[in-house]
């Protein structure tokens, strides 16, 4: 805070109109453009069809007769609740799996100090640079041979490949910030390594665990290409895939229900995000700085 007041004092020679043009105006424009698609999504969701395609008689930026018909149709005439449940299941399971694996790996790399720890850390970092776009074809053949095709298990097992590298690096950073002396004390008191991890390191790394957890959850919720390639039956699809493949039928797009689906599919992560904003920002920037 003291930084910003100092900065304010320095910049106070700048006149108010100049600040308005160089600072507030561009900032307002940025915020407007970054948020407008969400506003448009929301407003379309509540528009009746009569208003949706009639810009002459109705101002498109507002709803005159808001309706829940689109949401109603989505919830009760499609398998939308099923898709939500599947997505939730896949996101939670893969997050738990990824966090479990990452905690152990990060602990081993950062605290067990074995030879080659840095090499393993680097290898895991490089794994983050292998994008799903070049893996989905061979993975599809593997999933098929393992008999996992069209099963949520295929997603739960493959999502950790892009979650683990990120979480491991995030947690290595967190473990690094915990004083090693604490562990030494426990070692002298006769605690085993796993006890130390469970009783001392993990409780101190809770912020890191939350960051890694919400990040993994969001990434799993948003994942698209694996879910598109590995799942074929309608009721097992995840929300992003289902909206694109099940709600888009023929040439006439039902924009109302498409937007309702997008809005409802975005809400869980948006709500989740609003509770943990600071964790998101710290994990995002922490991972980049690490």
């Amino acid at each position, binding site marked *: 805070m003291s930084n910003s*007041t*100092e*900065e*304010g004092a*320095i910049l106070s020679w700048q006149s108010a109109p100049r600040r308005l043009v160089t*600072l507030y105006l561009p*900032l307002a424009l*940025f915020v407007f*453009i*970054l*948020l407008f*698609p*969400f506003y*448009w999504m929301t407003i379309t969701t509540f528009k009746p069809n009569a208003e*949706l395609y009639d*810009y002459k008689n109705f101002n498109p*930026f507002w709803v005159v007769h808001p309706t829940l018909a689109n949401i109603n149709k989505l919830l009760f005439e499609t398998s939308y609740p099923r898709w939500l449940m599947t997505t939730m299941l896949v996101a939670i399971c893969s997050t738990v799996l990824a966090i479990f694996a990452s905690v*152990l*790996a990060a602990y*081993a790399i950062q605290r067990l100090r*074995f030879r080659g720890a840095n090499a*393993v850390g680097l290898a*895991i970092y*490089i*794994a983050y*640079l*292998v*994008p799903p*776009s*070049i*893996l*989905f*074809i*061979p*993975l599809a053949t*593997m999933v098929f041979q393992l008999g996992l095709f069209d099963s949520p298990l295929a997603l739960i*097992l*493959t999502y*950790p490949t892009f979650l*683990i590298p990120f979480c491991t690096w995030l947690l290595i950073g967190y473990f690094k910030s915990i004083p090693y002396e604490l562990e030494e004390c426990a070692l002298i008191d006769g*605690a*085993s390594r*796993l006890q130390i991890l469970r009783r001392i390191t993990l409780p101190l790394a809770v912020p890191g665990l939350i960051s890694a957890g919400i990040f993994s959850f969001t990434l799993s919720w948003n994942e698209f*290409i694996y879910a*598109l390639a590995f799942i074929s039956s309608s009721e097992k699809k995840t*929300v*992003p*895939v289902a909206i*694109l493949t099940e709600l888009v039928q023929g040439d006439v797009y039902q*924009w109302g229900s*498409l*937007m309702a689906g*997008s809005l409802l*599919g975005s809400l869980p992560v*948006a709500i989740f*995000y609003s509770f943990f904003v600071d964790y*998101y*920002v710290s994990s995002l*920037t922490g991972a980049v*700085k690490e």
Partner: protein
Amino acid sequence: MADTTAAVPWNPRRSAPGALARLLDNKAFLVFLCLLPAVGLLLVFLTYPLGLGIWLAFTDTHIGRGGEFVGLENFESLWYDQVFWNAVFYTVFYTLVATVLKFGLGLWLALLLNENVPFKSLIRAIILMPWIVPTVLSAIAFWWMFDAQFSIISYVLVDVLGWRTSYIDFLGTPWHARWSLVFANVWRGIPFVAISLLAGLQTISPSLYEAALLDGASSWQRFTKITAPLLMPILSVVLTFSVLFTFTDFQLVYAITRGGPINSTHLMATLAFQRGIPGGQLGEGAAIAVSMIPFLVLATLFSYFALSRRKWQQGGNDE
């Protein structure tokens, strides 16, 4: 618990721990056990498929039947494939243009947010929204905004501002579609760049700016002599990730145009998907995906050297 072991050291249950406990105290075994889940998952579902993908690229595998080794046949047919070269061109174009715009605008936004503005943390929070929301879902919103008949952008340009006389066919002609997708990608990418760079900006000590101000440096000089050099390490890391993920982008294009009109907006990833999964030619799809690897290796090396330079700059405080 520590008390009991110290007080009764002769307790046979304590002095002769079970085989499992002894194993867990063996460091080599413990390291192995801790790394097993992460490394195991990555080896099975990342390293092996990477190798398998390269192998598939040299076979004629189809869905439902194993393939045989065909050498460079897939790459040869791609070499004469106009659609493939279109995809390579558009992937490079999309990556270059979107990255330049994302970083230009993202840096600008970061500099604005680094000023003393009211509701800073709230603005920072809502600005990240495009990055948090599932890409496909915001892409569908863009699809609707790019609609030929009911686009809200056209409505504003034609009916409100009167700058144009006809509605724009955003996704109907190749170049319009290409720029529309770049726009959507930039929209989605700005928050990540801005927030990362903002974190970098906040680590720069304000006393440097004070000193420069006292020495009479202009704001442009302060930017080029203080901000830019100190921001460079974090900028290069963010840049590498951004280039990597833009180059291998799939969702936006698949959701909005699916490669159309007339294959003009296919990225290498969407083309690989189209040939590989719905088309069933896994070998050819894998060959397209493998063609992306050289570009990715270049980006990775760039990242590696940027990182090592960073450690040196910080006085090598790492390990």
